[in-house]
């Protein structure tokens, strides 16, 4: 049996350990805010201060003059909205097929879906680029948006898990009454997995908002640049102006951070589903 003093000691010890760890986890983010609000002189004075002596909110205005952040923001938003919508609906459509329709070769095809997750991205990246280049689509948003209309293995897998939870009896009852699979999909199954759709939407948002490789490969024209590309260029232009670099980075990360605080539940749900993958 545990004696209660010993228990108490361990609880306090663990708590303290977690707090120290938390400081290490949060310090980079607080430092980013701190630098983003400092003046150049203060950064290079080399004093170790978390709270700036002379807070400069103007940094956040200045960066819009250094780089066309507003254009980047609009571009990124257009791509993001299209990709997120396509990702949610197309993947749900495919996942419903794999979860609720008994067709020939279903198991084998699903294994094929999962095995595509193992392919290194670069192996298809180069030939895909060649294809899009041959089609004359380099320097357009098509290569960034179009692939999301054909589903992605990870999302199909995630949504299939949720569709499995929709009772078969409900689907059979609807079939008896003459509903076809499209009607069942839109009217019954889709509304039932709304939280899962949200999870996919949030993961997709994160993926496409932060995508650097796609835009780097396909976009040459600066007026088409996304935020990620814009930031990278920004780094070259103002290599040691850390206050501007951090202010810009903070602006780009902000939507993700805000989303995280409002919709934590859905992020955690996605991770939990992943954790169950070994269940057969």
């Amino acid at each position, binding site marked *: 049996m545990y004696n209660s003093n010993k228990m108490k000691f361990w*609880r306090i010890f*663990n*708590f303290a350990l*977690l707090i120290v760890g*938390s400081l290490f*986890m949060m310090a*980079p*983010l607080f*430092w*980013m805010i701190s630098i983003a609000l400092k003046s150049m002189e203060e*950064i290079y004075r*080399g004093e*170790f201060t978390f709270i700036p002596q002379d807070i400069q909110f103007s940094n956040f205005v200045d960066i819009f003059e250094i780089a066309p952040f507003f254009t980047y923001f609009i571009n990124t938003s257009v791509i993001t909205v299209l990709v997120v919508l396509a990702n949610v609906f*197309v993947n749900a*459509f*495919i996942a419903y*097929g*794999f979860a609720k*329709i*008994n*067709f020939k070769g279903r198991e084998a095809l699903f294994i*094929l879906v999962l095995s595509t997750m*193992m*392919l*290194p991205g*670069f*192996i*298809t990246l*180069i*030939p895909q*680029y*060649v*294809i899009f280049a041959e089609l004359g689509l380099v320097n357009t948003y098509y290569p960034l948006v179009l*692939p999301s*209309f*054909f589903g992605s293995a990870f999302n199909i897998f995630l949504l299939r898990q949720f569709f499995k939870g929709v009772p078969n009896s409900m689907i059979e009852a609807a079939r008896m009454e003459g509903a076809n*699979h499209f009607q069942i999909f839109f009217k019954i199954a889709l509304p039932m997995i709304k939280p899962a759709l949200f999870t996919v939407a949030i993961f997709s948002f*994160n993926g496409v908002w932060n*995508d*650097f*490789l796609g835009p780097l490969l396909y976009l040459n024209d600066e007026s088409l640049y996304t935020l*990620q590309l814009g*930031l*990278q260029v920004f*780094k070259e232009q103002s290599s040691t102006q*850390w206050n501007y*670099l*951090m202010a*810009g*980075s903070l602006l780009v*990360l902000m939507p993700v951070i805000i989303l*995280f*605080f409002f919709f*934590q539940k859905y992020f*955690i749900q996605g*991770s*939990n589903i992943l*954790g169950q*993958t*070994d269940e057969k």
Partner: protein
Amino acid sequence: MNKKKENLYGYIFILPWIIGFLGLTLGPLLFSLVGSFTNYNVTSRMDFVGFANYKEMFMYDDLFWTSLYNTLYFVAFSVPLTTIAAILISTLMNQDIPGMRVFRTIYYLPAILSGVGVYLLWMQLLDPSTGLINQFLAIFGIDGPNWLFDSEWAKPSLIMMKLWSAGGSMLLYLAAMQGVSKTLYEAAIMDGATRVQMFFRITLPMVTPIIFFDIVTSTIGSFQIFQEAYVMSADNAGAPENSLLFYNLYMWIKAFNVFDMGYAMAMSWILFIIVLILTIINFKFARRWVHYEGD
């Protein structure tokens, strides 16, 4: 129910995936396989050159070996370190501790942050003179290294950044640990087991399926490191002294800087084979240490 009709519905529903698989995966794969035996460079013709690309890679190209070494180094350190860190943190959190939800949020947040913003943040943290890390070390009188500017410290810098975002796996482990039946621990306490014994005899074996899943996926993921190296190396090409020239970065340079596409495609197949072999080894070893409740 009509079986034929059911089949038809099935294929209609998965049709987008089938098209995508043929057009965006299988087609490109075949193209890449054929292309790897050619001197394709986008503009000129595609001439068949046999195994020349593969021969060049293995026998004459030092940078190929450098990039492979760098990548293996990164995988060998970052996968075990992040796994161990994630297990330790989730073990701490799997106790009855006040503020669990807050801790979860704090440790998980870095895992969802990615992209150029985060790389720039770390470039600042690692900056030898103005960065947080060296300024913090200076308080203790430690003269920090030059991190990304020093070929010895560049890779450890990236590994450190990966550790910061270990929260994603932490969440996986925490979910698994909370699924372990309480009766097992109660029985162990009755038998007088210590905390350490309970961790090694109950908690760890019960979460081995998740550890395995995490190791397999993060190994595959770590082999593909590219963006970090591209953005964080000063010249976008693996500086200093090629210490950040990872496999995918070198492949990128070959494909899109010098347009040696045939060579790059050959490289991508070698990477695929390496990752495949490692995954198979992972699965073979798994039988020895992964514990499934059904067994």
